[in-house]
């Protein structure tokens, strides 16, 4: 599964077939500090991410 990350914008490949929370933790990203967008739709952290899904993980913290 290809996951698009931000800040900076980049892509990583991780194993699918598991909840979003597990993917966040594997990538070292705090679930409370990120949103998971699956195929263009926001999903909660227990949503299952499949190998064919287009996934974006977006940070929510800003310091301005």
């Amino acid at each position, binding site marked *: 599964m290809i996951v698009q990350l931000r800040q900076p914008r980049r892509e990583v490949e991780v194993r699918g077939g598991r909840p979003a929370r597990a993917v966040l933790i594997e990538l070292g990203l705090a679930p*409370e500090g990120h949103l998971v967008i699956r195929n263009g*739709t*926001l*999903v*909660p952290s227990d949503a299952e991410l499949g190998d064919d899904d287009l996934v974006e993980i977006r940070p*929510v*913290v*800003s*310091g*301005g």
Partner: protein
Amino acid sequence: MSKCRACGEPAVIDLARHNANFCADHFIRLCLRQMTRAIDDFSMFSREDRILVAVSGGKDSLALWDMLIMEGYHAAGLYIGLGIGEYSDESGRLVRQFASERGLTLHEIDLRAEHGFDIPTAAKATRRVPCSACGLAKRHLFDSAAREHGYDVLVTGHNLDDEAAVLFGNTLRWDVEYLRRQAPVLAASGGFGRKAKPLVRLTEREMAAWCVIRGIDYVVEECPMALGNRHLAYKESLAGLESRSPGVTASFFLGFLERMAPILDAGVDHDDPVACRQCGAPTSAVDESCAFCRLVSTAAAHEPVPVRLVLDRRRRKAFDEQWGTTTMETT
């Protein structure tokens, strides 16, 4: 998959501080309810008031503008071009796109064109922390624009996490004067217009989710000059506490407003500002120019400084990775 607490449909977001999950429709309703509760509880403004929203191109200010319009308030936008390289180019583009798609009024101020400097140059010329020069310029220009265009109130997108982080920092330093002034609404006084923060009951995660659900394009990337600043460090500390005790950030900040702020404000005389001898704006600097005019006189006399040159090595690397700059290293 988790279900919406209100209707049982599939949820799109889990909110630990509410110990609940929500579908898109009920999440939107929750956010609007929290915003209108803040507006009403703190008597921020009425539906008849003309509102000016300070918009940066980030999630909070665009979500706020969207929410106010959705609730039927009369809200126009104000965007300040800060001259922070590609970051400002992109944020300006997104703000204009948001306003034009919805037929909303947008006022713009370009720091370089109208005042002869930008934020990187101001930071270099004054040796101030960039966020400090930026905040000073924005506060002055927000206030003067609201006055010039006859708006009743200026609103900003400061959210619960922003306000809690500021409170955390002020408390760590026991900065009583700043603590006393930290309020979700500041009444018009001594020439300063009314200012309000309608998002103080909503977190930044909730505001980012609002934008995703509503299809609002915003600048996801952090301002290159703010990367690693103290405010972010305070947020990181609070986020650690929040992950262990959901809701602690809200109780810290909202509890301060309810129980501590009235004590701090009691019996304090507020100094009447005087008019700046250069621009006429209200200022506490007696017999002097206001802080903004002093900033202009120093920064506008300095030759323009590209944003990369005021970033330290770590921030410059992040800036180049984000915006694809290929300029050679110069220092």
